[in-house]
């Protein structure tokens, strides 16, 4: 059982890494497509999402196979469960990247308006959170994971500001309402990506110490940080 399980776990790690790389690349491309309002790049993102969906299904099947054939326990069990959850979250992130890409063509054809959120802060922070959460998983580093959770507040705040700006923009410039609404959807998608990265970070803490921190993250962060001080 031993070497078979080891081999399958290694294979699973490679598999989830493939999903992570594809999703990260697609999120970066979607942000680039948004900044450049490039329909060609947006189209690439939308098409790549189908490949991500397929990878997600393959990874889930691999997890189910390991659970059924090897009945892993302890750290192996936590690893497989974490991959199962992260896989699902990465697929959702892929969907969000595709959503952002779909907004690009709408925004291009509407009356142009100033972007109602700080695109630099929001996109760079979200991409950074995604990259860090993947690194934290690969390195099993819960301090990196905690950092991801702390960053979420910045993206949330920017999304809230966007909502206010969009409301005001539509009131002052009703002809551009559709463009504003599309930007609001982009902002919401970025905020959702950041939330999903937080979920990944929580999964990593579970993987490391078998602790479910979903509903009391603040306390968990304090406790984990104090252990490292």
């Amino acid at each position: 059982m031993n070497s078979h399980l080891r081999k399958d776990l290694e294979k699973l790690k490679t598999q989830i890494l493939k999903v992570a790389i594809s999703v990260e690349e697609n999120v970066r491309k979607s942000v680039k497509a948004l900044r450049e309002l490039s329909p060609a790049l947006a189209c690439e993102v939308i098409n790549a999402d189908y490949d991500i969906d397929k990878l997600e299904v393959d990874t889930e099947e691999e997890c189910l196979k390991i659970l059924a054939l090897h009945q892993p326990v302890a750290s192996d069990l936590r690893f497989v469960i974490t991959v199962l959850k992260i896989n699902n979250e990465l697929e959702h992130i892929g969907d969000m990247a595709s959503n952002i890409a779909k907004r690009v063509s709408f925004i291009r054809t509407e009356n142009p308006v100033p972007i109602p959120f700080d695109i630099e802060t929001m996109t760079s922070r979200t991409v950074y959170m995604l990259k860090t959460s993947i690194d934290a998983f690969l390195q099993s580093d819960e301090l990196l994971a905690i950092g991801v959770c702390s960053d979420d507040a910045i993206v949330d705040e920017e999304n809230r500001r966007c909502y206010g700006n969009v409301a005001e923009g539509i009131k002052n410039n009703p002809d551009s309402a559709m463009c504003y609404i599309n930007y609001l959807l982009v902002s919401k998608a970025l905020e959702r990506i950041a939330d999903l990265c937080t979920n990944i970070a929580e999964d990593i803490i579970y993987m490391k110490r078998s602790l479910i921190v979903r509903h009391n993250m603040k306390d968990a962060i304090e406790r984990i940080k104090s252990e490292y001080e």
Partner: protein
Amino acid sequence: MNATLEIEKKKHSNIMKESPEANPKSGPGNIVEASGFSVYYGKFHAVKNVSLGLERGKVTAIIGPSGCGKSTFLRCINRMNDLVEGCKTTGLLALEGIDIYHPRLDVVELRRRVGMVFQRPNPFPKSIYDNVAYGVRLKGAIRKSELDDIVEMSLRRAALWDEVKDRLNANAIGMSGGQQQRLCIARALAISPEVLLMDEPCSALDPKSTARIEDLIAELAGEYTIAIVTHNMQQAARVSDFTAFFYEGNLVEFGETKIIFTNPKNKATNDYITGRFG
């Protein structure tokens, strides 16, 4: 001396031929308690300074690679190692606060209170009825109707009654391996033990018989305290409330099974149960 222990000692004083000293470390929740307990076979130190309690009414699994001392420890609880030449123990192993290795302890009474089921089913070459009745008859004269009731109740508890009620006089040797093992469990239950020791009870059984024994363990838990030695990690995870991991004679980790199998504290435990060694 703790008041609870004093009461327990009086209640069970019949186990001793003369009044013994009770173990001051025995907790009220633990029916069996080892404290700094060691076993030697000649110069070989098989169990090293183990401190461990078996909680009353719970199932404790003892796991570890071959030669780690888990069966030796189990067999000490009803002094099955007494006849092993060169076997010597130090430290304390107590049943309800009473030293199991006290020189004045009545070993027959100890084995009545602590039953044992072995790796291979070992029915006597007698009828099914006589197998179950054997230990009860040894305790002294008993009315036939009373004995019938005990045999039926024991076979029912061992989930065997429905299969054998019409052939109680048939020879037990003709039963299947799984049935023989349940018969051995019925035989152990017939003398109303408080603790049931199981040394790899399913290792010679097919999956269906194994599942029946596991179901039986779940049914008996609560009423009996069970300690089971097993090499099957999934079985330990399925049937036990607590798990003890032994390695090279040492008790490496002991705790709730759900913790041991999801988040063991010790790296060696994690490595063993995930199949990285052993």
